[in-house]
């Protein structure tokens, strides 16, 4: 088949800015992507993926080497518009690529630029909107759409140019799971029905499972390339590259390491179910076996600690909390309905729920940013409705989504002490706190005198969190602290938070869409839906209610889902298992207790 994208020894070097060494973002890449292929490019933040995408689209011209798009050289200025018409680019931030004040005008933007006659533009706009399932939103202003809807509009805007290929540059990284699924479904459809070549750049492994081919990028180079199955076999290489594998793959890999006989590695849930069935059957455990293992070895030790904490005192008590936005107007919206919730001192509480379910509204009550319309909230004995919020804000630190966007000072140090300055501490105490915080967050002291705007994305986020941590809050609330971070960066943040909780006893509340992270790091989970608190219980109790969670548009950790599926098939399954480690422990002890040990 014809080659859609061909690169020959492509290098790209960013110009030397402010004394930095010229950085080779892309360093000698030669790839061929065939017409109609669905290719996923995986790589950490800063591995050069976005630069590569821009090279495909002639937004960047290679420093060395050649990029051919459908046979056309991006260096040739005369064909640049043909290249961009044939290869559309969807960007990461859904907000910053929509141009017009209504959806249909935005979709029309591309064909308008190409000088397509109005009648045909109309036709293309209607068809494109239908392809992405947004035909009922033609007259909407973009700012009223969800992230997933915005990205679908961006895709429609490219479809209207009748491209042969769509490249998505981390276009799903700022979306919630629902939005991500919407976009993935649209892409699969375009690829299958219209034969459009899709290049999806991402760090979400689950998006790579269905691809025809996966490329792994590291330091500007392609280090692995092949079918998803073949790629995921290299568990260790992937982890080294700061990436992840699907949880079922990791579970099978760990079991293999323990000596169990597993043929090949599964990449999907279905595959893992059949592999596990085979394993259990061959170990003499069948549908009638009794469960004979201790739940204590299942959950990791951290999770078990929670049981000892259950009788701890309450730090935040919320009673009959209601919050209404824009009360008594036509836009009135009940964001919180009769919330009753207590948060224990020293626990890590996860809050999950679909976008718009009231999670952020809820946590903004904890430090008085929002005031209850009715009901009460008490933090460590202080009422959050008080006028003077200084004391309250000292007790509760709130880290907003994408906190790096709040940095503003000339130096990192000044930014970190922004809040501290108002407390009237001595200089020594201020310094002590800053160094304590950066030590905990792994920020190098060399960075303190740098401008925060010079740092990388991950470093900026840590600095922003440090600015809250120096206040030494008793409760630290984080609204999606890992949004946009790659698996390694995300893991690091969670490990820091765990450490903070363990060593300093800080109570932590985390809003997240990543159920695997919630399962691995939280003691309890609160589930929100349409402004109501649906349940709040320990991690294992919440995630075993898979069918309810799914009906509310939420995911379950993949391991929990696996256990549920096995139980449905009649096998005695440890429901408490939520993480890969849990799964290994549980299956190991289950198989051993079943009488047959290692192979």
């Amino acid at each position, binding site marked *: 088949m014809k080659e859609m994208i061909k690169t020959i020894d492509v290098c790209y070097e960013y110009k030397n800015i402010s004394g930095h060494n010229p950085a080779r973002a892309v360093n000698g890449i030669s790839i061929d992507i065939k017409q109609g292929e669905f290719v996923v490019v995986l790589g950490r933040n800063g591995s050069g993926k976005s630069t590569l995408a*821009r090279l495909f*689209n002639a*937004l960047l011209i290679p420093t060395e080497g050649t990029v051919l798009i459908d046979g056309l050289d991006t260096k040739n200025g005369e064909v640049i*518009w043909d290249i*961009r*018409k044939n290869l*559309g*680019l969807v*960007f990461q*931030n859904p*907000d*910053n*690529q*929509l*141009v*017009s*004040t*209504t959806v249909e*005008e935005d979709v*029309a*933007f*591309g*064909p*308008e*630029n*190409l*000088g397509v*006659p*109005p009648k045909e*533009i109309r036709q293309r*706009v209607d068809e494109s909107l239908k392809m992405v399932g947004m035909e009922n939103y033609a007259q909407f*202003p*973009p*700012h009223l759409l969800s992230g997933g809807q915005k990205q679908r509009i961006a895709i429609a*805007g*490219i479809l209207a*140019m009748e491209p042969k290929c769509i490249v998505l540059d981390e276009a799903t990284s700022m979306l919630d799971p629902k939005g991500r699924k919407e976009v993935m479904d649209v892409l699969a459809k375009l690829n299958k029905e219209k034969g459009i070549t899709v290049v999806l750049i991402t760090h979400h492994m689950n998006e790579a499972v269905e691809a025809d081919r996966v490329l792994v990028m590291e330091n500007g180079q392609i280090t692995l390339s092949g079918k998803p199955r073949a790629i995921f076999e290299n568990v260790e290489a992937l982890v080294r590259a700061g990436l992840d594998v699907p949880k079922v793959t990791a579970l099978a890999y760990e079991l293999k390491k323990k000596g169990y006989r597993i043929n090949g590695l599964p990449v999907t849930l279905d595959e893992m179910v059949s592999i596990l069935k085979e394993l259990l059957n061959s170990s003499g455990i069948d549908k009638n076996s009794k469960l004979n293992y201790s739940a204590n070895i299942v959950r990791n030790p951290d999770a078990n600690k929670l049981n000892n904490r259950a009788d701890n005192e309450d730090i935040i008590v919320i009673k009959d909390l209601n919050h209404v*936005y*824009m009360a008594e107007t036509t836009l009135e919206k009940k964001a919180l309905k009769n919330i009753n919730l207590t948060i224990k001192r020293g626990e890590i509480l996860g809050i999950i729920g679909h976008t718009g379910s009231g999670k952020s509204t809820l946590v*903004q009550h904890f430090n008085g*940013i929002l005031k209850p319309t009715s009901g009460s909230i008490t933090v460590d004995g202080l009422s959050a409705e008080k006028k003077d919020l*200084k004391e309250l*804000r000292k007790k509760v*630190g*709130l880290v*907003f989504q994408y*906190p790096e*966007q*709040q*940095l*503003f000072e000339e130096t990192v140090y000044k930014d970190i002490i*922004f*809040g501290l*300055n*108002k*407390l009237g501490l001595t200089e020594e105490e201020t310094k002590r706190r800053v160094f304590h915080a950066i030590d905990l967050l792994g920020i190098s002291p060399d960075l303190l005198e740098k401008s925060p*705007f010079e740092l990388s994305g991950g470093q900026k986020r840590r600095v922003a969190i440090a*600015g*809250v941590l120096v*206040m030494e809050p008793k409760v630290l609330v984080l609204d999606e602290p890992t949004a946009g971070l790659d698996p390694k960066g995300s893991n690091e943040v969670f490990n820091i938070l765990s450490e903070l909780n363990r060593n300093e006893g800080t109570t932590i509340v985390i809003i997240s869409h990543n159920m695997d992270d919630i399962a691995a790091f939280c003691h309890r989970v609160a589930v929100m839906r349409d402004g109501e608190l649906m349940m709040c219980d320990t991690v294992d109790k919440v995630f075993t209610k898979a069918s309810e969670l799914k009906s509310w548009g939420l995911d379950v950790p993949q391991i929990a889902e696996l256990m549920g599926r096995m139980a449905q098939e009649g096998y005695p399954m440890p429901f408490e298992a939520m993480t890969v480690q849990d799964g290994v422990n549980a299956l190991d002890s289950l198989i051993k207790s079943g009488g047959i040990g290692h192979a």
Partner: protein
Amino acid sequence: MLDNITLGQYIPGNSALHRLDPRTKIIWTGILMVAVFLLETWQEYVMMGAFILILLMISDVPLKQSLKGIKPLLFILVLTAVLNIFFIGGTPIFTIGPVKITYEGIYSAIKLFARLVMLIISASLMTLTTTPIAMTDGIEKLLKPFERIGVPAHEIAMMMSIALRFIPTLLEEAQRIMKAQSSRGADFDTGSIVSRVKSFIPVLVPLFVSAFKRADELADAMESRCYRGGKGRTRLKSIRFTKLDLSSSLIGVAFIALTFGARFIFNI
């Protein structure tokens, strides 16, 4: 706080006013505004008032909505009218201490008030019946002839439409940054004026940084969607003069002639 600002007051509808070409509306709004300032006799005022009222009625816009535009300006309107009462000399009706209320004062106050109300209503009639996109298209087309003397018509229109697109996004962002900074101990509500203005630095800096970043990304996105200025560009909805524009313009001319014609016929 910031949520209360609604932008682009366009009220969807299908009235004759909605269907007019935006250029017709922009030009005639201009003509009406000039005409309002030329009004002199009370007959002319009544004529003009009646005409604007008729426009209001055929516009399909709820009366409440069109009067909304007056509300924020009501204070200034009343103030200027009241000042007129006090400061225009003439036949006194009654006096309170040093203040003389004159017949002429009241008369001119009423006239001024009526003029300003008519101005506001005719301007808001235009924005209420025209989508922001049609408006920028109209401005672009109207400025087109001036391109030869260096007026960047297309660029002005594109800038206006991008501004309209991003104002809600930036407002949302400003609000989020304010919340985040107050969580870190920023205080926007107390202290002297100087310290309050200063307290906005932590909001403005990130807001500007992000606005520039957005601009950068938007430029990339536009370029990758083959944007290369106004040349050779077509439009999804190209605006076009229709019979409706012709007939309503004729009615407009007739009305203006009727209103001011009397003055010339009888006064000369």
